[in-house]
Structure formats: C-alpha cells, structure tokens
C-alpha cells in the first residue's frame, strides 16, 4: 500500500495545483475559435495541428452530410456568424462567395499563401482570394484487384456483364457529378456538352452493373470493403482507409479514365470577433510542416510547395506531362452552376432506370 508523509502529500498537492494553474492560464491565453471540419482522419489531423500551437483553442464542429448541408444553417442566422472558419471545397465556397459571407485573404494576412500555387486559389468576381487552400484530393476510378472479375482499363470495361451489380456509383449529389463528366469526355463531350455523358450514364444504369448508388462516404467504403461492389468512381478520402487493407488499383494514370482534382481549404467568415487569431491559425495550418502532417494523417496531398508528399499519395503526384495526359480540369464555375440542373436530370432520366 502506498503511504505518504504529510510533507509529501502537501508537496504533491502544491505541484498539482501549480500544473492546474499553468494549464488554465495557458487555456485562458488561447483565443477560442469555432471551426467546422469533416470528421474522421481530417479532424484528427486538424486536432494534431491544433495541439502543436497554443494561440487558439478550437471548438470543433463537424459537417453533417455533404459540405453544402452547413449552408442553410449559416444562412438562417446570418448576419450573425457562428463559425470562424468552415472547411470546404470549390463547391461550398462558391455558394458562400455569392452570399458575401467571406473575408478576402491575401499574402499579407496569411503569409504562407505565398507558397501555394495562386492558380488554384478560389476568387470572387473582383479577383479577390476568398478561401485558403490546404490540400488537394483526387476523384477517379478505382477497383479492388482481389475480387474484381475483370481488369478495368477503360470506360468500356464498366459495361462488362461480369460486373453486374458490382459497381459502386456516386449519387447525384456526390463528386460534383464529375462521374458523368468523365463519361461525357469518353463520349466526346465535356462539362458544357454533357449529352454524350448522359447517354452513357443511361446505358450504364440499364446494364444493371450498378449495385449501389453511394450517397455518403461510408457507403463507398462499406460497399468496397465488404465486397458488395468491386469498383467505381471515388474521391480520395473514401479510399484512404480501404487502401490500407485491400489491394486497390487507383486508376489515376490510365489513359481514357480521367482523373479530377479538387482542393479542400478554409473559408474565413465575416462578423466574427477573432478574425486575426483565426487567420493566424490557418496560416499555421498551411505551413510546410503542418501541411506535411495533414497530408500524412488526412490523406490529401499538400498544396504548399515546400511540404512533403507522403508515399501513400504518390498516385496524386503528376509530372507536367502526366498532368496533361491524365488529369482533366473542368470549368468548375460551369460544373457548380449546373449542379441543380444535373441533379434534376439524374432524377428524371437515370434514377428510374436503376
């Protein structure tokens, strides 16, 4: 049995008190901010980054559903903003910019933006930078080598009768409908001429090869890990965990199967009391070291040119020649403007065939 003298007990109590006071002072010194992030590995990465600084203390709020689901909640309380920053991508940023909710960012306010390729930064109509990119992810075709009855090498392989009920296909609100853009490209069209894509989409729906229409990230992961389906069209975070346990073929460098890239980043909100600490925290997050940490944990390739890309994300590293050959960069403004029309077209023409 542990026995303490009175002196030892008093010393221990004093030490504990000192630690508690120090900790509370540190917590008190940190500025509280509220941030909206994705769950899983993304928020884990962000929590690790938060732990490496003491300027802000983040109250983490998680996206529920797609990143667009937060927009009506923000609109309901606007002009009173509840979040200092919201993690999102081009799609959700576009809506926020149109509503004039965001604070423009510059190299003066977020110095590490100097190390991010300017081309990828989301801008408003005036050309102001409206969000801080932190990483890039891929949206591409992939399949499980161990259970797929065919080796998928082209769009045409998706129609193989051996794949009946074996394809997991994104629902109309997933992946910005780039899955249909991919089909359109194969049929000679593009995001402005989607008719060839819709024709192929109908053919695929009628083939019976689509076993699951995935409407959440979990749908993709569960369907692939359980073997319910063997392949399909995915975005990067849906495959990160699967790739650790199953032989996965990521078709990011396959002629005829386009790869799309999207950026994830931070949208900083107006009407919040702690703007400067928020910008400082975001600047810290996109520093080379934290970008590397984020890439390692969250599974998205860093955008900071000085950051290290982990080996597990080499499939998203392209030489200029590879980029031209395999990556298709759509006009995102067109893609985002068409989301409403494409979703309705899906409901009218594709859903009845599934």
């Amino acid at each position: 049995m542990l026995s303490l003298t009175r002196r030892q007990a008093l010393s221990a109590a004093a030490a504990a008190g000192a630690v508690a006071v120090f900790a509370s002072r540190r917590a008190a010194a940190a500025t509280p901010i509220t941030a909206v992030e994705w769950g899983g590995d993304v928020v884990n990465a962000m929590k690790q980054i938060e732990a490496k600084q003491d300027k802000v203390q983040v109250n983490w709020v998680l996206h529920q559903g797609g990143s667009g689901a937060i927009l009506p909640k923000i609109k309901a309380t606007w002009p009173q903003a509840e979040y200092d920053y919201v993690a999102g991508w081009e799609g959700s940023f576009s809506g926020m910019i149109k509503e004039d909710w965001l604070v423009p960012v510059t190299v003066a306010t977020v110095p590490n933006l100097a190390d991010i390729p300017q081309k990828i930064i989301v801008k408003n109509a005036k050309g102001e930078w409206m969000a801080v990119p932190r990483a890039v992810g891929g949206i591409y075709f992939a399949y499980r080598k161990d259970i797929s009855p065919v080796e998928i090498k082209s769009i045409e392989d998706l129609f193989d009768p051996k794949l009946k009920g074996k394809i997991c296909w994104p629902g109309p609100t997933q992946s910005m409908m780039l899955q249909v853009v991919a089909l359109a490209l194969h049929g000679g069209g593009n995001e402005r001429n989607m008719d060839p894509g819709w024709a192929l989409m109908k053919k695929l729906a009628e083939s019976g090869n689509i076993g699951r229409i995935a409407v959440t990230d979990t749908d993709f992961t569960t369907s692939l890990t359980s073997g319910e389906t063997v392949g399909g069209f995915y975005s990067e975070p849906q495959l990160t965990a699967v790739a650790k346990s199953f032989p996965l073929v990521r078709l990011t460098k396959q002629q005829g199967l386009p790869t799309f890239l999207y950026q994830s980043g931070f949208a900083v909100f107006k009407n919040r009391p702690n703007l400067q600490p928020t910008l400082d925290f975001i600047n810290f997050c996109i520093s080379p070291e934290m970008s590397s940490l984020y890439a390692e944990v969250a599974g998205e390739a860093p955008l900071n040119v000085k950051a290290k890309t982990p080996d597990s994300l080499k499939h998203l590293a392209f030489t200029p020649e590879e980029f031209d050959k395999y990556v298709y960069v759509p006009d995102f403004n067109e893609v985002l403007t068409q989301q409403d029309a494409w979703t309705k077209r899906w409901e009218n023409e594709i859903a009845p065939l599934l």
Partner: protein
Amino acid sequence: MERESRKRPTQPGRGSLPLLLPAGTVFMGLFFLPMAGLFLESFRLYVPGSIGSSANAPLTFANYLELLTPAFAGFFFETLRISLLASLVGLLFAFPLAYWMTRGVSPRWRAVGVGFFVTLMFLSVLVRTYALELTFGAAGPLRPLLLSLGISPNGRGYIETLVGAGLLHYIVPMATLTLLGTIQNVDPRLVDAAQALGAPAWKAHLTITLPLCMRGLLAAFLFAFTFSISAFVIPMILGKGRVLFISNLIYNRFSEIADYPSGAAISIVLFAVALAIVYVMSHQVLKRWK
C-alpha cells in the same frame, strides 16, 4: 332532464375555448407559420448556384411545373406503393397479434406485451435500420446465405423488400398498440353468439370483429401510412440510393444543392397528397362502416 345532462358535455361551451389556446399557440408558431414560409418559398425563383432564393426573388410557378414529369410521378408512385404495401402488411401482422394479446393472454402477460412494444417504439429508427443493414446488407452475415439461394442482395426486388422491412419495424409495434384498445372495446359475446348460432369462427370474425374494428384499423393504417410516406432514414440507408422516397428528394434539394424553392414545392405537393389520401381513406371507411 336526463337527456339534457347527457347532451351538455358534447356541446363546446365558451369556457372551453381558453383550453385550446396553449396548443393553438404552439401549432401557430411551430407548424402554420413555418408551413406558410415554405409555401411562399415554393413560389420563389431560384438562381442556380445560390443558397436558396433571394429575399426579393420574383414569384413563379416554375418549381411546380418542373415536377410535372413521368419520372417525378414515378417517385411518388414508388413512395406510395412501398408505403401502402408496408402499411397493409403491417396491419396483417398487427391485427392478429393485438387480438391474441387482448383475448388470448392473461392481463399480466398483456402488460408485459404492451411494455415490450412500447420499448420497441422507444428504440431509435436509426438503430433499427442499421440493425437490418448489418444483418441483411452489404456486410451482413446473411449475405452469403442469400447469394447461395440465388437471391442477389443488389437486386431491385430485394432492396425494396428490405426498405419495406425497415418500415415494418416501426409499423407493427405502433399498429399493435393502436389496435389493442379497439379490440378490447368489441364485446366478445357477439362472436360467441354468432358461433352458438352455427357460424364458423372465421366467418364470425370476418362479419363481426373486423367491421367493428374498422375505425381502429383505419386509424392504425393512417398512422402507418403517414409515417411511411414521410420516411427518410430508412430508404436512405436500406435503399442503396436506388430506392428513393420523396423525402430523400426533398433532402437533396434543401441540403445538397440548396435549391430551397424546389424542395419547398415538393414538400407542399407531398403534404397535399398525404392530406388527400387521409381524407379519401377516412371518408370511404366512415361512409361504409358508420
């Protein structure tokens, strides 16, 4: 004198009106006003890419006109068909169960049964739905068995059946509890008398018990049906994105593409259809079984 005293409680007096005030206020604030807002939103013009409509958006019928397509009618038909089947099957299970609990078990076991069904009602729909998904879905232990029996878990019929099973999880306990009181109010001596006069048991029940329970059955059916047509989580999880209920379309409009006017228009149409069905069903049943 006796007749007057019997009539008195059925006539609403002025003194009883204040009793309506709390509930009326709540309904006005939490139901009618939001519904009025939704109704107004459904006529606003939506600009693609924006979040909902702007405050000064012009009014239009476009959000309703775009619903006049065979595909949209198909979604409605699918929602109504699966809901109707699930509700009827649920009543087929619930009625004998409620009858047995009322007539066939002791009051003590009846209390245990009621407690069991009430507990089931407390269990979250989400939990019950995931239980079904984990057992019969993509990663379920019964999947290899289904495949060995030649049943494809990715087949359309299988998915619809699974969605129906998800609805039954709620319908059966709710309908059973609703029907307990109805059956208790039927005098068992009527059936006994019919049988004593030579009617077979099945005929006695069909001509006496069933008609006398018709109002209760209607109430249970309407509870089940309105729950089913507005179901969201069950088709979302068990439908594999291929069986879509109207609620799923409404969610997509509001939460994914931020087209609130279109979502509002679908909501209003669903509300109107549900009201029409409830009215027609109630009217027909009450007319036939006064």
